[in-house]
């Protein structure tokens, strides 16, 4: 550490994408959730969720797989290993920031 505040990953550090990643982080590795169910849990519009998923997919944090279940096409979403790691780093950075502020307040 150089002493500066830890940087927060800009991909995750946005309210909507933080919610998406947090929700996906509760799934076990290997489990995938269908788009409509995720949308229902997050209470986001399909368009809005798509936009944020695209950004997360571009960063390699989320895998969006289009498959068929029977005849109906489904989109299955999961956090990639990289995404899980980024989420853990992000959470660790938040804790570091909070502890940093706490220390500063103690010193002053």
């Amino acid at each position, binding site marked *: 550490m150089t002493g500066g505040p830890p940087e*927060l990953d800009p991909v995750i*550090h*946005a*309210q*909507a994408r*933080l*919610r998406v990643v*947090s*929700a996906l*982080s*509760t*799934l*076990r590795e*290997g*489990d*995938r*959730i*269908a788009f*409509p*169910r995720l949308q229902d*849990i*997050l209470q986001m519009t399909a368009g*809005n969720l798509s*936009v*944020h998923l695209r950004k997360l997919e571009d960063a390699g944090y989320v895998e969006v797989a289009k498959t068929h279940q029977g005849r109906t096409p*489904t989109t*299955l979403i*999961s956090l990639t290993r990289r995404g899980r790691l980024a989420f853990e780093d992000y*959470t660790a950075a*938040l*804790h570091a*920031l*909070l502890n940093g*502020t706490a220390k500063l307040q103690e010193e002053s």
Partner: protein
Amino acid sequence: MNATDDDLPPADPAESLRLIAQERAATERRLTPDSRLLLWPWGLAWLIGFGAYFLRFGPGGHVYVDMPDFLPLAVLLGLITLAGIVTGVVGARARRQISGPTSRQGAMYGITWSVAFLGMAVLFSRISDLLPVPEANLLWAGAMVALTGALHMAGGALWNDRILYALGVWISVVNVVGIIIGPGWHALIVAVFGGGGMLVAGLVSWLRMPR
């Protein structure tokens, strides 16, 4: 495309952590079946079903309530079937539209229950007629409860669920105590402490859900 409000970062680190905790808890609540709906139907089935057994086939052959002798079994089997359906529907609903190892585990665990009970039922139906009625009842009930206790313990191990595991241990102990005390009493003990244990475990699990 314009940046929307939800593209903005949370106000501060504490707000971010609050958002994470809230979203994770909300998601977990949605994806985990309600433990009350999973355990209470079984608890009630045991309470009423084994309760009926005790009232009809009491200790020393005492009949507390005069009802047709097929009725306790019919009540117990009917309620257990109903409980099985409720459990299956509740479990499947919570995990709907999610695929992967967890759903597979759930399905395999569910099938394990059916196969285990089927094996037991086939064996006992061939030999229980050779026993006097009180002993035959004790054999069926004792084995059924033993199997349930063991499968709850296995479920606790599978899902890393201490409450479910403890319930399995409790049911197993209650069963052995009932068997030692003997036919008649066994039904009462299993009804009150076994069925009651499930009601308590369902409530405790539900209270400990993240919220």
